[in-house]
């Protein structure tokens, strides 16, 4: 898929510092000197302990946040938050970000509407996407009338309908129960296999990361998070996330990555206990 050799997304030496909330104190460094590349068509997962600045990285990649230092390139073009968001990326948030006053179908077609697609045409596409994420016939329901899993599917359809070249996902399934979550992971892989977007997937769940990705990047504990490991996942596709977890290759990878991660997770845990 790497047709022209230019990475879909490249974060180069990105550092993010935030002013202390009380104003006076020293700045908090969330991310330090991080370089991260996602090739075209590649599925990359970023794992790390809780509170290590994973979401910050994603916001930088989305163009919602300007890094304090470093640069972001999207298909070779520099990205600056001041000039607007990353137009080639779709972003699926961790928390609910659906518009509660719009029905399912109206939420799905929101992006097309913003782009000025005629309403009738948008609705046809919207219905098609509702069907693809298994929500056919639920288009007239409001988000509060749906379950957590259905809302996630809706958010997925809302993002994918614009056919973004890069898909940014911030622990999208972390709020779901295990069964729903594995179903959603399989569905995501199916949808992804159809046109192989570049994906940057953030999670704290190592199993999820390995099961889904081509590559897993491990981050250190915060503050001043940076990548400390980069593991290629060469498990065969198509995969079934439930079954692949039982294979020896998966378990070996899991052991290898976990040994790199363990120390950082413990560090983060200690810091939380003290703090």
């Amino acid at each position: 898929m790497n047709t022209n050799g230019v990475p879909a997304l490249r974060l180069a030496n990105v550092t993010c510092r935030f002013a202390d909330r009380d104003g006076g104190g020293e700045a908090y460094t969330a991310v330090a000197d991080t370089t991260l590349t996602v090739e075209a068509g590649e599925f990359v997962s970023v794992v790390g302990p809780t509170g290590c600045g994973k979401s910050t990285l994603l916001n930088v990649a989305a163009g919602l946040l300007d890094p304090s230092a470093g640069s972001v390139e999207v298909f070779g073009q520099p990205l600056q938050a001041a000039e607007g968001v990353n137009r080639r990326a779709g972003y699926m948030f961790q928390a609910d970000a659906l518009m509660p006053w719009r029905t399912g179908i109206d939420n799905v077609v929101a992006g097309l509407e913003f782009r000025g697609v005629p309403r009738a045409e948008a609705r046809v596409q919207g219905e098609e996407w509702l069907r693809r994420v298994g929500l056919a016939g639920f288009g007239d329901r409001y988000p509060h009338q749906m379950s957590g899993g259905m809302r996630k599917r809706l958010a997925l359809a809302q993002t994918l309908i614009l056919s973004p070249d890069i898909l940014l996902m911030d622990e999208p399934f972390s709020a779901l129960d295990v069964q729903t979550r594995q179903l959603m992971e399989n569905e995501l892989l199916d949808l992804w296999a159809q046109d192989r977007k570049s994906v940057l997937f953030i999670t704290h769940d190592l199993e999820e990361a390995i099961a889904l990705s081509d590559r897993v990047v491990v981050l250190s504990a915060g503050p001043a998070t940076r990548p400390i490991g980069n593991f290629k996942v060469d498990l065969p596709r198509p995969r079934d996330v439930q079954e692949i977890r039982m294979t020896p290759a998966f378990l070996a990878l899991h052991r290898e990555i976990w040994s790199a991660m363990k120390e950082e997770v413990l560090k983060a845990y200690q810091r939380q206990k003290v703090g």
Partner: protein
Amino acid sequence: MRLRILQLAVLALLIAFWYAMTAPGLIPPFYFEQDNRAAFFFGEPQKVFWVVVDWFATGEIFPHLGITLLETALGFLIGASFGLGIGLWLALSPTASAITDPYIKGFNSMPRVVLAPIFAVWFGLGIWSKVALGVTLVFFVVFFNVYQGVREVSPNLIANARMLGASQRQLLRSIYLPSAMSWVFASLHNAVGLAFVGAVVGEYLGSSMGVGYLILQAEGTFDINTVFAGILVLTACALVLDSLVGVVERRLMTWQPKAGQTEKV
């Protein structure tokens, strides 16, 4: 059903008590020296009832009621539009908000009913002085709700809309406005009530039409029965207005989860 019967029983009891205490000659006077004094000060329920019936039968009340309701409607609409517009503007413009903050606070803490005489001078004794009073009352309720509503839009929702390609104008239309509207509707009962208060208080202070004017006239001739009749009509109107607001609210806010109805799978 049982509840309804008990509610009506309370009403019947109150009226019976009122009648018993005020009907001349029914019980010996124990506070006033004369038998008909109680009726003079507190009115008599059956006479109040006949005044109301007479008003509606002759149609005398309708022009007055129409004026009062017109003042209420105009006060509400103008006040709510200003509240919505200025609330949105200040919430989205931190500089303007910081500059106007002390003035907004000042105007809000001022007992704005004192403006009524000034409005009477500015706008005359017609409907506009009452509308102006209603506007000042309604404006702040709606304004603060819109301001709060826009401020409390989830940052996630804004980020999501931006990622979906929304321009500033589209953000305003698709995110800020609907979010603010839900707060406006939350304050609607309050706002309509205040518009009504503005209209009636304005009429008390000087007018030539309206239910408040009828009450003022009756008070001038110590016709307590008519005063009570006016109060009854106003109360009934307020109840009707409130239930109308309820209907509008239910119609427009279907997207909001009702209490006890959270998620349906």
